[in-house]
């Protein structure tokens, strides 16, 4: 049952913050978050996978359960699961309108670029936004950037600084149509203004990067696990999957600071993962040797696994890839943290009320 904050290993339970997000202390609400994230991630896996037999789907369910356990609250920092279905439906109706806007300004910009007279007037405009929710601000900022001709430079306490290439584009933006539509998407969470303000105060620097990193990380991790698990059908495998998993951790470190991230993902876990991965790889190799074959001669595993030779080969490769993936992920993370800090990474000392079993939930 999910009741502890994710990846909170070495430190005592911290109050709900943006990085350690607990949207609600309500058990029912947390369960709802868990299931909604699980369904999101599993559908992502099933779209990617294309293998719908029991074996692959069960691997997918296990991987998605694990990722959901470590990071399900990442999706629900600004918005709770209770309001999310309304927001998702309204967002889906917003997309066609926004695509139309992109199309319109694309044509306008192309005309501008190819016209013989220079009418460009690049300038920076600033305006205050009435949006209070962090996710709404991020959606608005990204909508502005996606629309050709305007780029969001910075959000400072809900003041937007936008680079516009032309007066007409800037006027179009300041008419406020887009903002009104986005405010309408996020109107179900308007009553949670106090909480929204607290999060905004904490994340005022790099709001967009932090929010996007938080939403992307679980998907990147599921993708990494998918690459590991499907290494024998599609490009990729243990090494590539491990690098993608490490990239997700590096993304967190870039967005939230290396120190904070490495405090959540204990360095001891990284070391354990590294040696466990190598152990799995060498263990399978030696097992084949003991069963009378060559090193990593998977066909010999059929005696041990009691399946036919092709399945034994497939399972053996899968096992080796899991080991390689673990080792590569841990090594990449370690290399990044060591290089970024020059080898002087200060770990927070393990607190005295640390539960012993929480130490190895990653390994």
């Amino acid at each position, binding site marked *: 049952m999910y009741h502890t904050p994710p990846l909170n290993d070495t430190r005592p339970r911290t109050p709900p913050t943006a990085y350690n997000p607990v949207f609600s202390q309500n058990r029912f609400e947390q369960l709802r978050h868990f299931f909604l994230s699980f369904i999101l991630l599993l559908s992502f896996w099933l779209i990617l996978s294309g293998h719908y037999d029991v074996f692959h789907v069960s691997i997918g369910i296990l991987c998605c359960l694990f990722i959901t356990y470590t990071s399900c609250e990442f999706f629900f920092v600004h918005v709770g699961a209770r309001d999310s279905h309304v927001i998702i439906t309204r967002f889906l109706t917003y997309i066609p309108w926004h695509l139309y806007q992109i199309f319109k300004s694309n044509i306008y910009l192309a005309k501008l670029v190819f016209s013989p007279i220079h009418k460009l007037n690049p300038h920076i405009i600033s305006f205050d936004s009435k949006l209070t929710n962090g996710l709404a601000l991020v959606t608005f900022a990204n909508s502005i950037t996606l629309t050709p001709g305007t780029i969001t430079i910075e959000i400072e306490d809900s003041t937007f600084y936008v680079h516009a290439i032309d007066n007409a584009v800037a006027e179009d933006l300041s008419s406020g149509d887009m903002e009104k539509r986005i405010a309408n998407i996020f109107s179900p969470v308007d009553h949670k203004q106090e909480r929204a303000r607290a999060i905004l105060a904490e994340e005022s620097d790099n709001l967009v990067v932090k929010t996007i990193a938080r939403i992307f990380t679980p998907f990147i991790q599921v993708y990494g696990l998918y690459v590991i698990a499907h290494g024998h059908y599609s*490009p*990729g495998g243990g090494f590539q999957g491990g690098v993608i998993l490490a990239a997700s951790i*590096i993304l967190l470190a870039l967005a939230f600071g*290396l120190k904070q991230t490495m405090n959540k993902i204990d360095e001891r876990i990284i070391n354990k993962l590294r040696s466990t991965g190598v152990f799995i790889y060498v263990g399978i190799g030696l097992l084949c040797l003991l069963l009378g074959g060559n090193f990593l001669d998977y066909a010999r595993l059929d005696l041990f696994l009691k399946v036919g030779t092709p399945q034994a080969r497939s399972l053996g490769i899968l096992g080796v890839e899991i080991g390689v993936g673990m080792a590569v992920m841990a090594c990449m993370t370690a290399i990044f943290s060591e290089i*970024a800090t020059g080898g002087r990474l200060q770990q927070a000392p393990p607190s005295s009320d640390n539960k012993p079993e929480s130490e190895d939930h990653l390994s």
Partner: protein
Amino acid sequence: MHTFFLGISLFLCLLVIPCLYRMIVGPTVIDRMVAVGAIGTKTLVILILMGFLYDRIAMFIDISMVYAILNFIGTLAAARYFESEGEI
């Protein structure tokens, strides 16, 4: 249809050259970073078009997704590095 995809891919390859010029000459670091980002986006589209050309779209979508993720993280890392002057 194959000729169409091939034509678009070649056109995008040609469009990479101006970006490459900006990347090599570009007076500031920011110019180079933006140029690399633009090249990455074009490469992504070219990869998917290649998938259509070789009729192995599933495989090329996997590759292009990894490319997108790493492009995003790479740009972010460079931006963080230059923003905070060497500290991450």
